[in-house]
């Protein structure tokens, strides 16, 4: 009888102990083994910018990374009157000494101008200033063809003369607009900062341009959803994503599309990716292009070039250069190239 009593007592204690341990275990790791990410968000670069970290200790680095982004915006935006880009634009063709960052970005911009034989051109500023795709406007006038004609000759990336940190626009009428490449450049600087600060896992999202930093604690790859340019299907269901892309380590997953910034006028859709040859929104069969690159500045440039090229030329270009990418056509067809780790949504989403 005594033996039975002791056994019951022992069982009760063991049960209580196990319950306590289980409960304490849950306390330390709420969310069933998944850590709640810490997101820091700011309205910068005329979009929404977010840095996500996964450890409380990294929170200050997320805030600092966004401060870095704000600093670069002041340096690189043509909309900021005393930015280095505004100084170059206002110099009337005189040489301007710029910081290392601006010089490096301009060097990249010229590279993509050369690579695409002028399809991608950051000297399109005079033309792009005729257009207004901003959400602050309700008028969105379509520029006069004559004004575009007059502005077009100044759009030529070969007008950028770069010698070390000294920049000169050979055509004083040319204006720089780095909208197609600056976000990527800034995201790279933010990723560098986070890595140097010892952050082991983070996500940078500058208006839909994603940079993954480090790796997840679980060791699983980062999974990035590719937004469906036309989320409403014919039968009324909404498909938010076309599929997902998996990447590992610090990588950029960047998208250029004709569906994010546009306005409608007389039944026509005017989107923000301008063709430097015509000064009008480029006619393309691609709604969006998502590319996977090590550096986001390259992703930005390549994705925009692909939209400008259209699906056939873009596919050849990506294959030739072995760049993983997902092309979403206007008709909804999706093309995965360059060995991208892409999984179609398959009815999910």
């Amino acid at each position, binding site marked *: *009888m*005594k033996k039975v*009593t002791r056994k*019951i*007592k022992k069982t*009760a*204690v063991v049960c*209580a102990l196990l*319950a*306590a341990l289980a*409960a*304490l275990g*849950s*306390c330390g790791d*709420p*969310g*069933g083994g*998944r850590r709640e990410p810490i*997101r820091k*968000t*700011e*309205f910068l670069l*005329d979009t*929404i910018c977010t840095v*996500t970290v996964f450890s409380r200790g990294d929170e200050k680095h997320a805030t600092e990374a966004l401060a870095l982004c704000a600093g670069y915006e002041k340096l690189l935006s043509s909309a900021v009157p005393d930015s280095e880009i505004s100084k170059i634009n206002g110099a009337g063709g005189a040489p301007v000494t710029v910081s290392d960052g601006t010089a490096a970005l301009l060097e990249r911009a010229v590279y993509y101008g050369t690579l695409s034989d002028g399809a991608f051109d950051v000297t399109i500023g005079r033309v792009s200033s005729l257009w207004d795709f*901003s*959400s*602050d*406007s*309700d008028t*969105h006038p379509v520029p006069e063809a004559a004004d575009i004609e007059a502005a077009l000759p100044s759009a030529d990336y070969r007008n950028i003369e770069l010698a070390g940190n000294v920049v000169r626009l050979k055509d004083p009428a040319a204006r720089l607009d780095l909208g197609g490449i600056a976000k990527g450049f800034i995201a790279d600087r933010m990723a560098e900062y986070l890595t140097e600060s010892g952050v082991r896992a983070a*996500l940078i*999202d500058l208006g*839909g*341009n*994603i940079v*993954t930093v480090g790796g997840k604690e679980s060791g699983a790859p*980062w*999974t*990035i*959803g*590719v*937004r469906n340019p036309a*989320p409403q299907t014919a039968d*009324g*269901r*909404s498909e*938010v*994503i076309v599929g*997902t*892309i998996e990447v590992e380590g610090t990588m950029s*997953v960047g998208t250029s*599309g004709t569906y*994010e*910034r546009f*306005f409608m006028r007389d039944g026509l859709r005017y989107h923000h990716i301008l063709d430097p040859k015509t000064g009008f929104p480029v006619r393309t069969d691609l709604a*969006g292009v*998502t590319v996977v690159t090590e550096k986001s500045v390259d992703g930005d440039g390549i994705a925009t070039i692909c939209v400008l090229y259209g699906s056939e030329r873009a596919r050849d270009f990506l294959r030739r250069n072995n760049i993983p990418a997902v092309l979403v056509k206007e008709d909804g067809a999706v093309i995965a190239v360059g060995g991208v780790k892409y999984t179609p949504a398959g009815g*999910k*989403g």
Partner: protein
Amino acid sequence: MKERFPTGKPMRKADAILIAALLIVSIIGAVFALYAGSYTNEANVRVTANGALYGVYPIGGTREIVVKGIYENRIVIERDGGKMQVRMADATCPGKDCVRHAPVNLSGQCIVCLPNRLLVEIVGGENDFDAFTY
């Protein structure tokens, strides 16, 4: 009278204290875990206006949220077919990009009204992916 085990033997005081203490710890832990679990595993709609938290709303039921800033935005949480979604039903901002934005229903998605500096995002909840590119 002393508490007795079913065997009829009296329970020692030390045993009783130990079992009681462990049970209390378990209950507190379980309550915390349940609370924390519900917070992280269920999706909520978080509204941030001009950089400050405006409110967090469960995505479980139909709801309308009106945010007044420089402009006014009307956010609707509703059922669309089988699943809940969030959309910007109306806004007085000039461009109305936010109203044209497709409804969102997955954790991590957001709708932004830049002129009103308004961010509507789905937070928490389980997701098959870490971020969206667009």
